[in-house]
């Protein structure tokens, strides 16, 4: 595999909070979205759940699909569409040989997901090896791998611009808050990722093996009033904070405001995650469901010129 030369870690400047990481020569850091005021950032902003999702509030993560990347920019183009094209020019072009080698996109979630590494595909052995490395080294929190199984050409988020990419999602943390425990976990994950890359570039052989992962299956919305679309229930207390648990038929999902429990009715045992993420109310998502699987990755080593 080719030497990693250009690796990018992205973070968001929110209000006046700037997270720094130890940088080495081959690692660049980049501001994904400059928010002048915390309420301006669309990365945490959301529409109320009782209105339809509007194209006017565009989430940068959802704008890096092909059509948006090639659409002409006008005065009325949403900020994040403009920014998506700028980032594609800076870091891509998406799909080309000029794109940088790796993007690691740093995220937080209000869900109790510990450290979750999110990938588009199950066939990028580089990022899966990084996951395996993180899983063996990090013991403070559960480290899980999530695979979306979407072809890169259809992928719409930032880390799909580079040749290899994945997101680090750490939670639970409210929007607008820096928690020391969450920060420390993310910093450790970033440091270990850089560590792996240096070792890889220096010729270390990374043995293959199995990586346990969760594959995205589908999303589940909140129960809503059919006319007003307002919520009629909240995540059930027995499901709240139980990301990646085993969900079986008959297990509680929601507790309605009138006191009824809505249960999981399907036969297939699945694993919920992104349970009660603030930003997903506007997307009609109470949680996602995934299937546990084993991915087998080969032994890898850097290609010598």
């Amino acid at each position, binding site marked *: 595999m080719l030497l990693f030369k250009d690796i990018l870690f992205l973070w968001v400047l929110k209000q006046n909070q700037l997270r720094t990481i130890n940088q080495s020569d081959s690692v660049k850091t980049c501001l994904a979205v400059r928010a002048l005021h915390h309420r301006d950032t669309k990365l945490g902003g959301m529409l109320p759940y009782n209105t339809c999702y509007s194209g006017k509030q565009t989430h940068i993560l959802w704008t890096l699909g092909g059509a948006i990347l090639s659409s002409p920019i006008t005065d009325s183009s949403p900020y994040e569409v403009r920014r998506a094209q700028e980032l594609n020019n800076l870091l891509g072009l998406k799909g080309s040989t000029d794109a940088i080698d790796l993007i690691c996109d740093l995220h937080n979630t209000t869900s109790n997901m510990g450290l979750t590494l999110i990938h588009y595909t199950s066939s990028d052995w580089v990022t899966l090896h990084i996951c395996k490395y993180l899983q063996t080294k990090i013991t403070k929190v559960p480290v899980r791998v999530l695979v979306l199984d979407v072809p890169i050409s259809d992928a719409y988020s930032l880390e799909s611009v580079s040749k290899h990419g994945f997101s680090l999602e750490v939670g639970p943390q409210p929007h607008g*808050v820096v928690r020391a425990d969450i920060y420390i976990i993310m910093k450790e994950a970033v440091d270990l990722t850089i560590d792996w890359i240096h070792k890889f570039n220096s010729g270390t052989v990374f043995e293959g093996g199995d990586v346990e992962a969760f594959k995205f299956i589908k999303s589940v919305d909140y129960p809503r009033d059919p006319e007003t679309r307002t919520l009629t229930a909240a*995540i059930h207390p027995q499901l709240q904070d139980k990301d990646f648990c085993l969900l079986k038929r008959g297990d509680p999902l929601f507790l309605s405001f009138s006191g009824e429990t809505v249960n999981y009715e399907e036969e297939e045992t699945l694993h919920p995650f992104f349970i009660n993420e603030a930003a997903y109310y506007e997307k009609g998502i109470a949680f996602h469901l995934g299937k546990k699987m084993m991915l087998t990755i080969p032994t890898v080593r850097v290609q010598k010129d």
Partner: protein
Amino acid sequence: MSSRTNISCLQEAKRVAIFGGTHGNEMSGITLVNMWIQNSAEIERNGLVIKPFISNPRAVEKCTRYIDTDLNRAFTPENLSAPDVEGLPYEVQRAKEMNRMFGPKGSSDAYDAIFDLHNTTSNMGSTLILESSTDLFNLQMVHYIKKAMAPHTCSVLLNEHPQLKYSTTRSVAKHPIGLEVGPQPQGVLRSNVFEFMRTILKHALDFIELFNSGVEFPPCTVDVFRVQERMDYPRDTNGNITAMVHPHLQDCDWEPLNRGDPMFLTFDGRTVLYEGANTVYPTFINEAAYYEKQQAFMTTCREILAANAIRKACK
């Protein structure tokens, strides 16, 4: 031996309002008030006019704390007496409108009681916020609520500080009560937090109904936490924070903070210790909305307030 002369006779509380959405991303109050606007059966009480009300509908629509300025700081005398001109910040307009509907603040026409429903990202549990140590009606009410909610703890925060007290939405009423339940992220509805807030309101309205029916409430004491000081994050010369709430302090609202205890952890790994001479009880630790208000947490001291017996005044 009870002395008949120590009973305070207070005016009946006929008009009560419940505000949700003073901050448009604090979901428990918004959800409760919208539910009660649709169906008020749960909040109806004999002889009481109860109005559930969304304070900041534009902020609720955008699921953001405020549009132009914090509504819960906007009920100042200057704002309330500002002339109706174009270009007034949305929340100042709203404050004037609400003052007309539920006030005027300080007058005998004002609503008797207003409950203002809030959430916090801090681990404050269920907190009742008072603005006066001498409001006997409110002291007796929080005493009643605390007893009714037991063994679930309700902490009482008293903000009577001359500089740190602020002009809240609820301050329009004769008896303002803040309900603050956390931890809950902005934009999120947690079932347990929602149900705690709902139950507190139920007990509060029960108290008012009992009081109005002539029940006498005996003398009582209330343990409160009195606001002392605002503590900001360490910042650099550009105003950026250079440290986070220390892991040992994070989530420890209402627990004693002693001299020498860790307070902040800098991004480069250094611990900043609390240097105050006296033990304090921190609260609002790491509230998301307070980064812009230069507040990492607030210090409080413990106090016991005494309240006379109260009874509805005879006409």
